[in-house]
């Protein structure tokens, strides 16, 4: 385990370094300029130039990159250009909400996908199979920006069951927070859950055709147990891979979902930052996302070796 981590760490760091460069470059590829957004709609070119000077945007690109990295490594994220305040505070404020949202969604993904996948793999025809098919299809066919608005119209406007948007801290007000969380998390989770359910279903069907299932059947193990205890564990390693991939989609999806539900998380912050070309903020945020993602991949690989004992750590 420790050797595994030690082996993976350098490549992880390399990814981060590469990512930092890409992040930096991509932002500068996008047209528009933080100075013009800062200067406002009716500013004169002189003002813009002055702001560029103040922000150091007139420096050579490589110099800007190095100075950003330097600050980053010294732990000083510096001030944001356009949103105001320190980048570290901004990220700190949004982090909780986003973690709440993505973890909530992740939980829902698993809770939805597992039964859908299992039932999908075991029932071939009949109303249940049709219902499962309908759900997995519908959810993948309706994009989240429609789902989100529909959910709000249904549960907030018509039935007045849940608030239309907003956020409460799970730690401070757990009972309210859950109600605020319900719709955004669901909206975020549904597409990933449908995808995961697909793979689970496929994996379970595959496992059910294997000889060891024949063994279990011959032992008289009940169908239910065969599916859950014998076939499912064999489908899990690949499902975990897919889940790892889906976490990337969750983070990307958070941008959209946070927007629809006015959720004060990092997704909103990224969007705001991009819309205002707040370079330091977006750079740091994206790098954070990359870091989280690299960590998630590491975890999935660990989970993989844990779920499939045949795979060794070398």
């Amino acid at each position, binding site marked *: 385990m420790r050797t595994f981590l030690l082996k993976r760490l350098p490549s992880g760091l390399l990814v981060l370094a590469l990512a930092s460069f890409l992040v930096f470059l991509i932002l500068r590829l996008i047209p528009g300029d933080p100075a013009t957004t800062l200067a406002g709609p009716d500013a004169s070119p002189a003002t813009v130039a002055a702001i560029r000077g103040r922000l150091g945007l007139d420096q050579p690109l490589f110099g800007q990159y190095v100075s950003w990295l330097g600050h980053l490594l010294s732990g000083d994220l510096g001030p944001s250009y356009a949103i105001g305040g320190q980048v570290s505070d901004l990220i700190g404020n949004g982090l909780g909400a986003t973690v709440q949202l993505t973890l909530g969604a992740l939980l829902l993904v698993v809770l939805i996908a597992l039964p859908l996948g299992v039932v999908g793999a075991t029932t071939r025809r009949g109303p249940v199979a049709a219902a499962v098919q309908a759900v997995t299809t519908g959810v993948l066919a309706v994009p989240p920006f429609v789902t989100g608005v529909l959910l709000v119209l249904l549960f907030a406007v018509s039935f007045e*069951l849940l*608030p239309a948007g907003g956020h409460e801290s799970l730690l401070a007000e757990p009972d309210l927070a859950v109600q605020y969380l319900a719709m955004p998390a669901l909206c975020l989770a549904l597409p990933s859950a449908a995808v995961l359910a697909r793979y689970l279903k496929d994996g379970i069907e595959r496992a059910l055709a294997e000889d060891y299932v024949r063994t279990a059947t011959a032992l008289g193990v009940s169908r239910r147990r065969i599916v859950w205890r014998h076939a499912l564990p064999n489908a899990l390693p690949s499902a975990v891979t897919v889940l790892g991939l889906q976490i990337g989609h969750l983070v990307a999806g958070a941008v959209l979902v946070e927007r629809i539900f006015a959720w004060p998380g990092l997704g909103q912050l990224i969007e*705001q930052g991009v819309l205002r070309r707040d370079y330091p903020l977006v750079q740091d945020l994206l790098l954070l996302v990359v870091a989280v993602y690299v960590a998630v991949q590491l975890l999935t690989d660990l989970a993989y070796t844990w779920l499939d004992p045949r795979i060794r750590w070398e």
Partner: protein
Amino acid sequence: RSAVEHARNAAGAVDADSPRRGGVLTVATGIDITPSLLFAVSANTLVQRLAFNTLTRYDDRLRPQPELATAWEVSPDGLNVTLRLREDVLFHSGRRFTADDVVFAVRNLQNPARSAQLRSTAATVTDFRKNGDFELTLVLAHPVSNLFDLFEFMIVPDRESIEDAVTGTRLIGTGPFALTGRKPGSSLSFARNEQYWNPGRPHLDGVEIRIIPQAESLLSSLRTGQTHLSYNVRGKDAATLVDDPRFRIKQYDTGSGAHYIGVDVTAEHVRDKRVRQAIAWAVDRDRLVQQALGGYGTVSSVPWPKSSPAYTEAGATHYRHDPERARALLREAGAEHITLPFAHSNEAGPTAIAQILQYDLRQVGIETVLQPADSPTMQKQLISQSMPALWTLSHGFAQLQPATLAVSAYPFNEARNSSRFASPAYTDVVQRAWNRSDSDSPEARALHQQITDVLLDEEFVIDLAIAGLVEVAGRRARGVTLNKFGYLNLDDAYLTA
């Protein structure tokens, strides 16, 4: 506990129909403030008049009323303006407001970094003469017709915390509410300023500004009672709420800006002004107002809203939907089958407008290639004069003294604009309209008419419609007003049960 109830109760239970103390008013807006643009008019100007005050305030007919300045006097030559200030005003920090703060406020706007649109007007103030702490004379380089636009525009900040203000961490002013918390991209919270100079005001305990970027979600938050007030409801959504007794909808005739087609007058084909006029004739403005603005807007060929001194019926209706005439003009100009690039913002609303315009132009033989871009990109192109031949955007600043438009709004700026339009005649008439101390004399009106005539003839900015500024308020929110720049004034606002 139900979060739905909880969200509504955030407003506090107040039961009478008369102005009552208490409650937190929740305002929904589509976009967060940009702290660095605190001293400029930007997409979100809700906070300016909450945390700050201005020197004077316009009434409905652009007549100044006292705020921090209780009296004022302009010398006959228009070069000296003497202001008498309130003496009982404290900043949120507890410091007393004096003439020095006005001096600072004006100097602050002269700083290009503040990006104040009325910087040119502020820059005419060359000297300050104080008579004690509460009287002050501003010395101007030349008379200007839009001085009180400046006083309506200029918020008076605390000079000690100005750097915190432009980073959005602390807003110290003299206004009715003090900023208590900001979650960037999400919300701003304000609490009542207990030492507010206006006695008994404000009624509200606090104000919460919620940023809800998704238009549908913003509407839902109003409909569920989670928020009480918004100015960002799309016209087409407002239209669906008109008959709903839970809402009051008010349209300000100052407009929230005007939609226009900008033209690069140096670009091929459109450098001929007949082509530009043809475009003006080609657009079906009525359909645009109906389909893109949900009927909340006024068809207009000029920038001026009805409230402007420069408004004339003839000017507003100068160009109508007349494809025949457009075709004739194009024929005359020898530009019958042309293709032009056409930039627009990639948000849903502007994209719809651009498509309508594209379709109308095609009907007269002008093909356009739409170039959607996000707003920072548009803005950069606008400021750096790198727009393609055509673009569509909206502009402000026509709701005030007409001279302000031509010296402060970038599309119309006589010295430098995105259209690369320059004409001595335009410069001359603009300067004359601006360099005078009055704006409602017959002479001034004649100058305004001349400006209008130039605009209508040259059509480097092709005005299409004045967008309605729509206030959608839940039944419970009362006494809400905006100033001419869209600063939210909640001095007299209250919540009913």
